């Protein structure tokens, strides 16, 4: 197969980074990104973009750690380069605090982030309701600039991007040899995956430029993540809620919870409210599938279901998806030669 035609469905963090990995590792491929939404209107645009992993119950820890390491290494290099501000990637330090000491004091990712250590007594004094804490330095991206930066990189490698609502993966079989499904929460409808469910998150993005450190409650519900221009305050974890409309009662609740962690936020200005649906799943669906109808086959690589942890593992899963695409190409070339025989 001279120039395999690969379609990537989805233009969020996973779709764009997967398309880029495919273009980087498979120069002979012609890659096209198809999505009904592009930044700033994707679900990823709402994400705070902090590299603090979410644990997938159904994926082996060593695999998650590998994805995390690859993502961290990739972003670390960008944050250290002249492109950091354009890509929206920067280092941020802070604290994860717990009201009750967690069972696992050392999470699997403690040696991937920088300078991980328990908080000192003096540091904990700032959080009178919390008994235990962890201090570390990690990476954060502002998703809208990062997505734009990924799009720019894609255009530079010749990848085409089109606004198009794909209703069914099969509709692509005549134009493309391989389809990569990075539809995120859209996969629920696109491929009818009942195991994929939304976890609704409401966040506030506020102007509070004196907040330089992140603070996260270990329960994952309350967090303060300083971005380039705004600080993201969160949040909620509402399983099975599909509503994209901000809820005013929730807004007040998030603001109050964050102010109790960081009182200076009372002076925050210009509060913007956003809602996202985390594409949650027991494990990330990262696997090949072959769709076939009437003797015609369409190889598919799925890469969706990253839930709350998309940013933390996106590059790692993108690389794995690209590897699966190369397997699909090899399989296609194998069957082509068989056909010739």
């Amino acid at each position, binding site marked *: 197969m001279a120039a395999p035609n690969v379609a990537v469905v989805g233009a969020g963090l996973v779709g764009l980074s997967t398309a880029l990995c495919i273009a980087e590792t498979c120069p002979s491929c012609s890659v096209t990104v198809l999505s009904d939404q592009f930044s700033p209107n994707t679900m990823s645009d709402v994400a705070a973009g902090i590299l603090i992993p979410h644990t997938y119950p159904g994926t082996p820890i060593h695999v998650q750690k590998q994805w995390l390491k690859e993502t961290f290494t990739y972003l670390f290099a960008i*944050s*250290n*380069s*002249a*492109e*950091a*501000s*354009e890509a*929206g*990637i*920067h*280092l*941020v*330090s*802070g604290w994860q605090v717990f009201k009750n000491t967690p069972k696992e004091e050392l999470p699997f990712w403690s040696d991937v982030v*920088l*300078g991980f*250590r328990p*908080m*000192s007594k*003096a*540091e904990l004094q*700032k959080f009178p309701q919390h008994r235990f804490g962890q*201090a570390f*330095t990690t990476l954060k991206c502002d998703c809208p600039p990062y997505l734009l930066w990924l799009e720019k990189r894609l255009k530079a490698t010749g990848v085409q991007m089109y606004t198009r609502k794909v209703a069914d993966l099969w509709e692509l079989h005549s134009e493309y040899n391989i389809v990569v499904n990075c539809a995120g929460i859209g996969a629920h409808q696109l491929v009818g995956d009942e195991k994929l469910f939304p976890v609704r998150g409401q966040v506030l993005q506020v102007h509070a*430029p*004196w*907040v*330089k*450190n992140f603070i996260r409650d270990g329960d994952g519900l309350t967090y303060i993540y*300083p971005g*380039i*221009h705004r600080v993201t305050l969160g949040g909620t974890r509402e399983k099975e809620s599909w509503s994209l409309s901000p809820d005013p009662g929730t807004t007040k609740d998030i603001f109050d919870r964050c102010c109790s962690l960081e*009182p*200076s936020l*009372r*002076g925050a200005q210009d509060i913007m409210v956003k809602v996202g649906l985390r594409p949650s799943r027991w494990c990330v669906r990262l696997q090949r599938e072959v769709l076939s109808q009437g003797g015609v086959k369409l190889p598919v690589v799925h890469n969706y279901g990253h839930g709350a942890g998309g940013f933390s593992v996106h590059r790692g899963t993108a690389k794995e998806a690209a590897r699966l695409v190369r397997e699909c190409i090899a399989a296609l070339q194998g069957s082509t030669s068989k056909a010739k025989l």
Partner: protein
Amino acid sequence: MRVAVIGAGVIGLSTALCIHEQYHGLVPSLEMEVYADRRTPHTTSDGAAGLWQPYLSDHGNLQETLWNKETFDYLLGHLGSPATKEMGLFLISGYNLFTQPVPDPSWKNIVLGFRNLTPKELELFPGYSYGWFNTALMLECRRYLPWLTERLTQRGVKFFHKKVESFQEVSGDGVDVVINCTGVRAGELQPDPELQPGRGQVIKVLAPWVKHFIITHNIESGIYNSPYVIPGSELTVLGGIYQHGNWNEENSAQDHKTIWENCCRLLPALQKAKIIEEWSGLRPARPCVRLERETVRHGHFQAEVIHNYGHGGFGITSHWGCAMAAARLFGSILQEKKLASLPQPRL
């Protein structure tokens, strides 16, 4: 009892507030005036980034270490209060970088979470093989000085925008106590060969993605002569100039080049940062802070002078401890004048 404070930088205003807070209740007749030729945002304090961090070594000036600690603890205590934003006070974490191992600083237990850098962190800073990470405080004088001014004005303290030419000028006017917080130009009121300008220059840029302070150190070139990057609430300060004895307050093109090239080498992403301001200032450098009483006489008049100047590059860092010490000196003056009976001043 009339008190004249000369100087409205961080030292003058905080000393004025500290004294007024502690003694106005005891001495209802206390009248305080602040005289300054330069006021915020044109003081030396306004140009500083505002990072709380003492020099690497206190050179045996244990007193200064105590003042620094007192200041840090005082500011930390204010962190949760509603005034924090107005004061320009916030926590900030960051890096101190060295080309060789160095002993831990006197302030390692004052700041929060002090530790050495890991090898992976040092990868961020090629050319540096050793370093520290800690969380400290920022106190931006462009907000802090107006906040202090507001507190003082509410207390009835009067401000005079005027250059005081001599102690006699204010003492002859019926002032009983003069608080001398004149910083680098204290020599104009009373010669002090030990006081020298430590000229600095900074470039202020828009780089809101920078969330940490980064201070490099070059043991040979000396303090502040190595690049540093300090993110404020609006602008990020790039610096790394210390010229002893240089009184020039004009920006130097050569220093601009030095700062810009060195800081961009340290943090490549700064190349894309937009330059907003450039400023030069004179650190009031002295082998040790002059914080003491003196009786100054002129003809029939005499005034008690409390000197509080010579804080070099650690004025913000030490200001509250020094203000408290000056207030204790003031208390002993009151006792002598039998205006108040106070418990023995603590050292």
